[in-house]
C-alpha cells in the first residue's frame, strides 16, 4: 500500500521565476572570454551566495530546491568564483525530456551586480551546453525568458539561441503590466547540440508558434 506523506516536488519553481536574468547582463562583448574560477556549485555555496541572491532579480528558494539540483544534476550546476575568492555567479540546470526532446535546461543563471559585463553568464552557459552535449548527449539546450526582456533575448541570440515557441502566461500571476502580454509570456529559446545533426530542435518562425503554459514541462 502506498503511503504518501512527504510531498516530493519535482518542479518547485514558481512560474514567474523560471529564469532569473538581469537585463544588464546582456550588454556584452562577444569576444570577451571570462576570467574567473569555474567550478562545480556546492551545497556550502548557499552560505556564501548572498552577494548574488540579495539582488532583486534572483530568487532564493528553499534548500530542497538546490539539493534536488545537486543530487540529480550536479554536473549541470556551476559557479564562478573571483580570483579573490568571492562568488560571482552561478548556473543551475537539469536534463529532461524523452527521445528527441531529451535536452539540457537552464533553470537559473545569475551574476552578482559587481561582476556584470564580464561575460560570466555566457561562460557558464557554454559550460552547461558542453556538459549537456558530452555527458548527457542531449539534442539541445533550452531556456525561458520574458518576452519583453529584449536585452536578454538579444544576448541569447548572440550566443546561438533562437526562439522555438512562445509560451502564453508562463510567468503567470503578475497580471498584465505595462508591456501587456510580453510581460507574462515567455519565449522558449533553444540551441542545437552536436547530436541534433539535422537541426530539428529549432525553427525559424518560433515567435509565431504559440502554446499555453500547460503544454510545456
Amino acid at each position, binding site marked *: 500500500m502506498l503511503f504518501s506523506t512527504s510531498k516530493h516536488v519535482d518542479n518547485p519553481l514558481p512560474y514567474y521565476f523560471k529564469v532569473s536574468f538581469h537585463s544588464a547582463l546582456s550588454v556584452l562583448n562577444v569576444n570577451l572570454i571570462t576570467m574567473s574560477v569555474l567550478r562545480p556549485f556546492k551545497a556550502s555555496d548557499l552560505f556564501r551566495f548572498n552577494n548574488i541572491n540579495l539582488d532583486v532579480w534572483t530568487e532564493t528558494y528553499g534548500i530542497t530546491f538546490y539539493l534536488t539540483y545537486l*543530487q540529480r544534476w550536479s554536473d549541470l550546476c556551476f559557479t564562478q568564483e573571483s580570483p579573490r575568492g568571492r562568488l560571482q555567479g552561478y548556473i543551475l540546470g537539469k536534463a529532461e525530456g524523452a527521445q528527441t526532446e531529451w535536452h539540457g535546461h537552464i533553470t537559473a543563471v545569475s551574476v552578482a*551586480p559587481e561582476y556584470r559585463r564580464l561575460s560570466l553568464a555566457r561562460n557558464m552557459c557554454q559550460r552547461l551546453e558542453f556538459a549537456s552535449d558530452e555527458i548527457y548527449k542531449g539534442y539541445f539546450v533550452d531556456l525561458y525568458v520574458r518576452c519583453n526582456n529584449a536585452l536578454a533575448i538579444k544576448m541569447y541570440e548572440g550566443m546561438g539561441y533562437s526562439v522555438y515557441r512562445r509560451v502564453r502566461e508562463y510567468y503567470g500571476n503578475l497580471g498584465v503590466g505595462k508591456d501587456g502580454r510580453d510581460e507574462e509570456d515567455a519565449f522558449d529559446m533553444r540551441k542545437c547540440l552536436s547530436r541534433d545533426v539535422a537541426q530539428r530542435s529549432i525553427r525559424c518562425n518560433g515567435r509565431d508558434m504559440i502554446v499555453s503554459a500547460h503544454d510545456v514541462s
Partner: protein
Amino acid sequence: MSETALERQIRPIYDALDHGSNKSAINACNKVLKKYTNNTLVKALKALALTRSQKVEEALVLCDEILAAVVTDDSTLSVMTHVLKGLARNSDMVAMFDNAFKQQPQSEELGAQTFFAHVRTGNWKSCQQVATRMHKQFQEDRYVYWAVTGAILQANDLGTAPNIRTLLYKLAHRHVTSCPTPSYMAVDRFHLHLIILQELQLWDEANTLLESDIGKSICSASLVCNETRREIWRKRGLYKDEGERAQEKIKNNDRNWLEFVSVIDAAFASVQGPDVSEEGKSECSENIAKTRDFLTEIGEVDGSNNRSASLALLELEKNAFSHGISSDENTLVDSMENYFSQFGDKTCCFEDLRPCVDLGADAKARWISFLASEEPSFATTGDLQRVINVRKLQRISLAASELSTDKESCLASTYIEEYMAGLDLGSSLPVTELQPADDLAILVGHAFVSLWTMTKDESYLHNAAVVLEFALTKSRMSFQIRLLLVRIYRLLGASSLALDHYRAINIKQVQNDTLSHFLLTRALTFSLSATGDLTYPSECIESSQIYVSNSQDTPDFIIRAFTSEKYSQIPEFVSFDDRLENSLQRDIVKLEHVRMRMTHEPINSDLIDMELIELKFVFDRFHHDNRDFGMLPNYQPACQPSLNDQTLMFGNSTGQGWLWYFIKIYIRAFQHASDLDDIVEEKLLIGDRPKKSPEPEVQLPLRERLAIRKPEEVAELTADELQLMEWATAVSDWLEPYHDYTRPPPAMVLAEANKQNELRTGLPLRGVDLKALNANANANGHAKKDEEAPPVKEPPQLVTQFFENMHARFVQLQQSQCLPSDLLHVATLTQEAFLLFAVESHRFKTASVVKIHKLGALVQSLKDIRSKACTVLKTMSTDLLKMGEVAGSAERRKSFVESCKPITDFPRLHHDFVLNIAKNVGESRKKVLEGVGKGMVKICTNYGQ
C-alpha cells in the same frame, strides 16, 4: 473477515491521515482494533495520528507495544518511520530496522532501509558495517561504495583520531580495489577513488588512474574530478608540469583563472619551502622573466577584452617582491598603472587591485600621484566607474596621519558632488535597476561613519542616513545601501526603521542563517515584547524556520544521493546539514528569544524546565559560524577598522564567547529554579539527545563547565554585560545551597509528573517504576532531609549594589554624549537582571517551602533586593519615557535638520527631504524609548512583589 475486507477498512485511515484529520483517523483505528486487537499496522497508524495530534505519551505506549515484537512488513515499517521521525526517536528507528534486517537477512529492501536509518543518525561506522554486510549478501557493487563512503565520513568526523582516520581510509582503499568493476565505470566512483588516493598519498596509483585515457577523458568532462586532479598534482609538487600544461591550455584560449594560478606557481616552484638556495633564487628570477614575457604576450593579444593575463602579471610582480626575488616595487606599480588604464572602467577593478596597494613609501607616493592625475569625467558609465575606482583606491590608501575631521568632511562633499553628477547617467533607468553611481553614495556613508567614530558626534550619522535614504530613492533595490542603513539606524536607536529596511531586502530561507545577525544581534535592546508587541520574538521564530526545514529535508537528500550514487555530493550534504543544525547564529537567536520570552510570558516551571533542557542541548553543540559579515562593502582606510566593525552596535558582535557566557547565566538560573535533575530529565525526555560535540571541554561535568571563564570569551561582552554576568554569578553562588536543599527529591518530582500525566491522558508515565518510587518516597519520609538546612547568609555586596550601580551608569550615560542604543542597552540589561532574579527566587515564593525550611530571613533579603531593583527600574522607565517625548519633539527634528548642514547645500537634499527623515527617526526613537519604558513598569508590576 478476509484480507481484502481488512484492507478496505484500512484505506480510510490513510485517507484521513493524508487529509490531516487525525481525530477521525484515531476513531477509525479504534474501530478496526476492536476486531483485530493485535494488528501492528493499524496500531502504527494510530500512533502516527496520535503523534500528529500532539498526544505524545499515548503514541509512545503504542510504539513500545509495536517495537516489542520485530516488525518486518513494509507498510508498518514505513508508517513507523514517520512516527519515530515525528517523535525524534531515531535510535528507535535504527533498532527497528536492525532487528527487521536480522530477521530477514535476505531482504535487500530491509538492508537498504537499515542503512538509511543509520545515515539519519549520522552513525557512519554502522553504515559502513551494514553496507559491507549487504555487499556480501547481495553482491552488488554499489554497496561497496556505500561502505567506502561510510568509512570516509567516519574518518572525516570531528571526533575521529588521526591514526584511526588513516586506518579508515586504508579500509576504504581496500574496498575500492577489491571491487570487481573498476572505479572509472562511473564518475562519482572514480572521484571517490581519487579522494582516497589523495588522502593516503598513493601517488603512483593516482598517476596510473589519471594518466589513463579514460581517466583523462573523465577529468576533461567532470569539473569535480579535475579539481581533485589538480590538487593531487600540487600536492605531489608537480608545479612545473602543471604550469606547462596550463600554458598550453591558455595558448588554446582557456581563461580559467586556475590555469593562470598554475602558471604563476610554476614560476615560484624553486623557492618553495623553508630553505631557499641562491641557485633556487636565480632560477626563479629567470622563470619570472619568462613568465612575464608569456603573460605580456597573452595580455597584448587579449587587450581589454580579457583581464586574466594582466591580473596574472600583477600577481607575478607582487609575489616576486614578497618572495624577495625582486627589490624594486616600480615594476609592480607599472603593472598596476597599466591594469588601471585598461580595466578601470570595470567594477571589479578595485577588488583586483586592492591586494597590491600595500606598498613601500616611494612606490606608494608614485601610485597615489598616478591616481590623483586621473581627471574625473562623467561622460559615460565607464568614466563614472573610473572615478569610483579612483576614489575607492585613494580612500583605502589614506594614512592615519592624513585623517582628520576636515579631511573627511572635505572627502564627504567630494563624494556627494560626484554622486550627484553621476546620477544623470542613470536617469533613464527603470526603477528596478541599480544606479551606476551608487558606490559614491556608499562612500559618503563611509566618510560620515568615519567622522562619527572620530568625534562620537551623532550628527554625522544623521548626515549618513540622509544621503543613503536619498540614494535609495534613486536605487530602490540596493541591498548594500539598505544594510548600511540598518546598521546606522540601530546605532541611532531608530529600530523600527532598521527593521523596515531589513524586511525590504527580503531575506529568506538559508539567508536567514547567514544574515539575520544584522537584525537580531542583541535585539533584546529594542524588543517591546514586555508591552505585548511581539515583533522581535516573531522575527526570531521566523528566521529559525530554516533549521526545522533543514533537519526535515536534508537527511532525505543524503539518502537520495546514496541511492543515485552521487558520492561526490554526500560529504557536501552532510557538512551542509551539520553547519545548519549546529549553526552558531541559530543558538544566538535562540538565546535572544529566551531573553525576550521572559519579558512577556509568565515565568513558571513550564518555561523554566523546557528552556533549561533546550539550552543544555545548545551547550553541548560544536558550533559553526555561518554568519556573513562580507555583505557590507568596506572602503575604509587600511589604518581604520572596517565599515562592518565600525557600525556594529556596542562595538562588537555576539559570537561563541558571548553565547557561552549568556548560556551559562541562564542554565544556572534555570537549574536553580527547576525541579528537574538529571535523573528526572532522563525519564521525561522523549526524543534522542542531539550529537555531543567531541571537544574535551564539553566532556567535563556540567557543573565545572558552568564555572569556566575565559578572557577571549569575556572580550565579546560589553562592559555592562560583564557586570550582569558577574552579578548573576554572585546571585547563583549565594542562592545555590538553598535551592539544592529545598528541591524535592527525584522520586517526588516523577510521582507528580506521573499524576499530571494520568490526569491528562489516563495513562501512567512510561518508563517510570511507580512502586519503586513509592517505596523510595516512603523511606525518605516526606521530602525531609537528614542534613541540617544551610544557615541563611546575608547577600554579598555585589548582589545588593548591582541595581544602584546600573542606575548610576544610566545617569552617567544620560549626561554624556551617548547614543540611545547605549542607554537602552543599560536599561534592558537591568531589566534582564531583574527577571533573572525572579527566576532565582521563584522557588521561594511558595509559602510552605519557606516555612518548612525556615527560610524567612532569606526571603526578607530577596524582598529587599527586589524592591530596590523595582525602584531603579521605575526611575529608568520614567527617564526613558521623558526621553521618548523629547526624541519625538519638533525641536529635535529641527536640530536634526540643522545638523545636516554639511549636505543640505545640494539642491536635491532639500529641507523637506531632510525634515522627513528627521521626523521618521524621531518617531521611531520615541516608539522604542517609550515602549521599553512602559515594558519595564509592567515587569515591575508582575514581579515586584
